[in-house]
């Protein structure tokens, strides 16, 4: 019988985990249930952090926020917007891409380590995260880091917890370093570039002093044409100045057929970058979605290797370092082709979804070097000795009864 456990406090959540530990009974951990990413977790009991909800502390003058793990991302984004601040790493909303409903929780964002386009300038979720509280696989309540943005007291388990998909512990509270929300945004738009030319242009922009906060390339926009996007954010005059300078800098690099313009309208900018952030172009379309993390200049080579063998379409973010790939086939052969292309150069590929219904596949994560895999496996065993937390999700071996 499938059942859903929804403890309403950290203490009762810990109690629940302790009972499961005693009985060696595995659980699937969910926040908002919006991210079925990773290998399928084959268990009957689900543990939700949904009722651990609320902002514990928000000090705009200190750029700090602490919230319970089940607080929705929306609640947090709204509270921050009121003070003109935001989470710097631009967390994505993959509901449309994954075909899921519901609301992302902040704990889920952290557990999945989700970062948007601004990662190239402001860092990833792990860079904004400054403290965690979590319940280990033995039901111990553990804290690490805190609410101050500079802290090297003991090991940095904060980073380790971020992106661990609930396999090391159940997050109960997370703390962030915030930044002022930019007052203005401008985007340099270039049309008609092939992938290699686009990534060269993005590199040039990111290597300029004009503080680029987004650098993406879409092989096919709504009209089927390639578009390259470079974002600046900040005080209005400064944005105007920097997008202007970027235009001058990049113009000589472009073929004559390319289009070059600057978008200054706030709503249009918001739409452009939401589309990149949430990978909207692939939402609702048939096929598997892969997420490749590579050296930026390798992005186009990896994609051209793959497209020689498989039908695929790419969206490049992070200046080329993050490649979203929509691939026709979801079989093992496709996985072999994609992973081989990545392995030839370094980096890794994650199967983000199997099909338009958002089903996850097996072996979602890239195989790791044996010693690194052993270290990760041993860490999980230390945090979760009975292997009861999201068993198998990251490819780790299942429960040892």
């Amino acid at each position, binding site marked *: 019988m499938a059942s859903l456990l929804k403890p309403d406090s950290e203490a009762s959540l810990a109690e629940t985990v302790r009972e499961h530990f005693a009985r060696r009974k595995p659980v699937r951990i969910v926040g908002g249930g919006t991210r079925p990413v990773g290998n399928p977790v084959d268990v009957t009991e689900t543990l939700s952090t949904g009722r651990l909800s609320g902002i514990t502390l928000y*000090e*705009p*003058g*200190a*750029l700090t926020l602490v919230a319970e793990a089940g607080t929705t991302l929306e609640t947090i984004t709204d509270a921050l917007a009121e003070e*003109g601040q935001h989470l710097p790493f631009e967390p994505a909303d993959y509901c449309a891409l994954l075909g899921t409903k519901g609301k992302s929780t902040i704990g889920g964002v952290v557990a999945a380590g989700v970062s948007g386009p601004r*990662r190239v300038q402001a*860092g*990833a979720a792990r*860079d904004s995260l400054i403290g965690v509280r979590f319940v280990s696989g033995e039901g*111990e309540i*553990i*804290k690490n880091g*805190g*609410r*101050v943005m*500079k*802290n*090297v*007291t*003991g*090991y*940095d*388990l904060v*980073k*380790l917890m*971020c*992106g*661990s998909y609930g396999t090391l512990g159940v997050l109960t509270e997370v703390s962030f370093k915030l930044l*002022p929300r930019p007052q203005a945004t401008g985007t340099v738009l270039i049309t008609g570039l092939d992938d290699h030319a686009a990534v060269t242009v993005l*590199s040039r922009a990111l*290597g300029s*002093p004009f*503080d680029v906060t987004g650098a993406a390339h879409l092989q096919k926009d709504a009209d089927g044409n390639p578009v390259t996007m470079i974002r600046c954010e900040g005080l209005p*005059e*400064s944005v105007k*100045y*920097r997008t202007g*300078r970027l235009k001058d800098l990049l113009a000589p690099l472009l073929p004559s057929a390319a289009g070059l313009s600057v978008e200054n309208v706030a709503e249009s900018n918001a739409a452009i970058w939401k589309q990149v952030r949430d990978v909207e172009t692939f939402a609702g379309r048939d096929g598997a979605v892969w997420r490749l*993390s590579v*050296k*930026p*200049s390798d992005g186009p080579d990896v994609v051209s290797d793959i497209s020689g063998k498989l039908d695929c379409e790419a969206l490049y973010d*992070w200046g080329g*370092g*993050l490649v979203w790939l929509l691939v026709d086939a979801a079989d093992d052969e496709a996985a072999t082709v994609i992973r081989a292309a990545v392995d030839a150069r*370094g980096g*890794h590929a994650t199967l983000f979804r199997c099909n338009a219904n958002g089903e996850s596949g097996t072996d979602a994560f*890239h195989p790791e*070097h044996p*010693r*690194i*895999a052993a*270290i*990760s496996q*041993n*860490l999980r065993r*230390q*945090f979760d000795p009975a292997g009861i937390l999201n068993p198998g999700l*990251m490819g780790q071996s299942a429960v040892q009864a």
Partner: protein
Amino acid sequence: MSLVEMPKADGAIISRKAEIVAALQAAIGTDGVIHDPEETLAYECDALTAYRCPPLAVCLPRTTQEVSAILRICSDMGLPVIPRGAGTSLAGGALPTADSIVIGVARLNQVLEADYGNRFVRVQAGITNLAVSGNVAGEGFFYAPDPSSQLACAISGNIAMNSGGAHCLKYGVTTNNLLGVTMVMMDGEVIEIGGTHLDPAGLDLLGVICGSEGQFGMVTEAVLKILPKPEGARPILLGFNANEVAGTCVADIIKSGVLPVAMEFMDKPAIIACENFAHAGYPTDVEALLIVEVEGSEAEIAEQLEKIKAIAARHDPEVMRESNSAVQSDLIWKGRKAAFGAMGQMADYLCMDGTIPTSRLPEVLKRMQEMSVDYGLRVANVFHAGDGNLHPLILFDANKPGDLEKCEAFGADILKLCVEVGGCLTGEHGVGVEKRDLMVHQYNEADLEIQMRVKDVFDPKWLLNPAKVFPMEASHSRRHGNRQEAA
């Protein structure tokens, strides 16, 4: 008696010195091993000079393979290993024991690859922090974390301590600028974590290696993010007649949406000491001084400084002096950067490094002054105001019996105060031996146990920098049991 104790050296190891030295020499050559007691003396301490102990021997390998060979020997023989960068740790992170082998990275100091299109450099870990920026400056790039010790400190030390700098409000600290490491495990296996891509494939091991204080493995190479230099930067000097006012001004600047790259705070004792030492032109009749720096083009700098001046004006500053030239900017920074030197000239000092929520600043400074009176020791404060990282410098006289102990007790009280108001024991210097036994004030047993379990994974025999970070009592069974097992 001083507060910090080190474990008793293992006599059995010391008695095997000749055999150990021979094995190390066979592995990396005689010129790579220092064992003459007169020469090992140079490695007896780091910048926490109150504690000294020469190691059994020092190895200075030239390659990752040599590091691997050394570690295999140490692992087989059960010898404690102390990784060492440049020895500028203020926490005693590189302090040896008499039975330990120091492995220094001084000879691993090359840039291996600079890739400006992808914005990274691959370096050997013994290169100094400043040399990294120096190497890429010609192409208009820099390495962002800038500890005051950057002329001397090594990248490996920065990684071990997750070091910060004055500009981390905008650019982050070491961990935010580190893409990958090559690390030799205690058993000699060489692994690469991270690389030239941005995200980890699985668990974020790089994230937990950074800041692990040399307890997980010897880092021999690193891939570092480099950033394009801004078009320009300019500081403004703001003087206030009360710490509280300066503190409120900092919060107001942050809330306004301007993001300065640095906001440095100095209290009156620090201002006077720095001014006397560096002649930076600081006003000596104010209670608190802020250095706020912004970056960008001329117009962008002007736009930001106008906003900052408007905010500052609401707090009745005694002094508001914008730099008008590179020379003036350098002078403004010169005073701040000379702070440690200035203190060193006046007296011996201990540099503390707690962090507090910035909102608690005035209260903490006030209580620190009260403690200063109680202990009868002077304290000066320079710190990174944007992020709440305090550097109280406690002045004492090393020749006066009992003064160091009093100073340490005062320091411990300050750090406990930091924790009490919601902050932490160390913002950038690390725990080392200095704050090891204070860890129980910030973390409970379960918090510490899980951290020690992480070390168990990387270094099951607890041979790497074993007597650091954790309270001696807490780590006792692990160090003890494993030493026995290895023998």
